[in-house]
């Protein structure tokens, strides 16, 4: 058990005009750990994810990332090219809407291969081989490799996005409602897939979800947000089975079988 965090944020605050979207938020994430961020719509989950991943600058506070050599980087003080490199290599981002991440006019194989090429891979045969391997891992028939994403179902698009994200073996993946737009039967399959891939590859994940069942299934620890503040945090099963804060009790009591 290493004591060094992969990602740490302290005192993050951000307002949209008069609206406080983040208030004094602290986050720690260790290698290989799955952290769920839950809370009602508008509580600041996506804002937090965007600030943690350097896509949105906070009004106050800081985010540090520890690279594989152990060096700390202040994410919001990094030069833009360095941050872009980080997003292409060590990090991944899985959006609720896969179309935000995928190139819809490029084949499925191209979508997966592109991330590898962005990292400097040049050998066509090997790129295609890895693309086939990853399509198979996310349970997309390798025969679809030359098809365009627009011919894919919602669940397939989401799996393609996951293949595209994981092909570079990121150490840290940010996920915003990865199963939110899918129907329930497809969700279960995707959750199982995320669970096994992330465990096997030892990837750390910050997972935003409004679905307590998803958090229970996937996360080691959980953060509960309300109106931009962290109202409760801890071991997932403890927070869900013995919630202390009134808002967490409300959240847990309003789902059937969490």
């Amino acid at each position, binding site marked *: *058990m290493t004591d060094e965090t992969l990602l740490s944020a302290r005192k993050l605050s951000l307002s949209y005009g008069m609206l406080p979207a983040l208030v004094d938020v602290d986050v720690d994430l*260790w290698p290989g*750990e799955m952290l769920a961020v839950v809370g009602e719509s508008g509580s600041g989950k996506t804002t937090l994810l965007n600030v943690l991943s350097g896509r949105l600058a906070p009004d106050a506070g800081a985010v540090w990332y520890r690279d594989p050599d152990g060096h700390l980087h202040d994410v919001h003080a990094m030069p833009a090219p360095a941050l872009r490199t980080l997003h292409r290599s060590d990090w991944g981002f899985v959006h609720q809407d896969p179309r935000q991440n995928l190139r819809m006019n490029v084949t499925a194989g191209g979508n997966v291969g592109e991330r590898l090429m962005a990292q400097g891979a040049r050998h066509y045969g090997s790129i295609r081989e890895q693309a086939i391997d990853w399509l198979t891992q996310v349970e997309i028939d390798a025969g679809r490799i030359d098809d365009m994403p627009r011919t894919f179902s919602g669940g397939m698009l989401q799996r393609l996005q996951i293949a595209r994200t994981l092909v570079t073996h990121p150490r840290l993946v940010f996920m915003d409602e990865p199963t939110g737009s899918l129907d329930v039967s497809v969700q*279960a*399959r995707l*959750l*199982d897939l995320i*669970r096994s891939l992330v465990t096997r590859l030892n990837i750390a994940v910050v997972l935003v979800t409004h679905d307590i069942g998803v958090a229970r*299934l996937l996360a*080691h*620890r959980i953060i509960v947000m309300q109106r931009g503040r962290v109202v409760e945090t*801890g*071991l997932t*099963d*403890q927070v869900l*089975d*013995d919630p*202390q*804060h*009134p808002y967490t*009790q*409300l959240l847990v*009591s309003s789902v059937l079988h969490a």
Partner: protein
Amino acid sequence: MSQVMLRTTALAKSFTLHLQGGVRIPVLSAIGLDLHSGECIVLSGPSGVGKSTLMRSLYGNYRAESGHILIRHRGEMVDLATADPRTILAVRHETLGYVSQFLRVVPRVPAVDVVAEVPTGRGASQDEARRIATDLLLRLNIPRRLHGLPPATFSGGEQQRVNLARGFIGNHPVLLLDEPTASLDAENRAVVISMINEAKARGTAIIAICHDAEVRDAIADRLFALTPLQDAA
């Protein structure tokens, strides 16, 4: 002399129900319990007295309100009442096993992998982990044809036996069992009793809740009686 594996001192637990106007329900108070290796303590007391609450607190599933829960982990006593989440997970991984009353099923994961997850999580190869899991499932009379299926559609008794296999496969030095035989027939009860007694012989320290007098007599070294707080006060 066998050593203390788990010790609680002055453990207290109450629930505050914020949705019911903040009413406070005191459940546990001044719980002092010593559990030695190779020993099985059965929690007793009327329904609603707090047996499951105590067990869940020992597992870190419920948050202890005050007092200490010391557990021997990697040769040192760790206080689960104050440990951070990652320490609690490490203790559960290596030292502290728990068989809940009901299996919480994960969609799409076959029974054999539900059980094999524990050894693979500790670095065993998938083949090796599946082999041990299969043996344990067979011992608990789960027919081979079910091993490849997710337990969601299993009967209550089958699910409980998968849960037991998952709980026993890790050979944790301390094991918590909440009603391990509640929905089992006589034959399977006998299997579970012998598994518990074999674990004790290996030095496993066990805390169990079981209403069945026959099972209790077969496994308990002593009872730990919980009394309703109002009466005790």
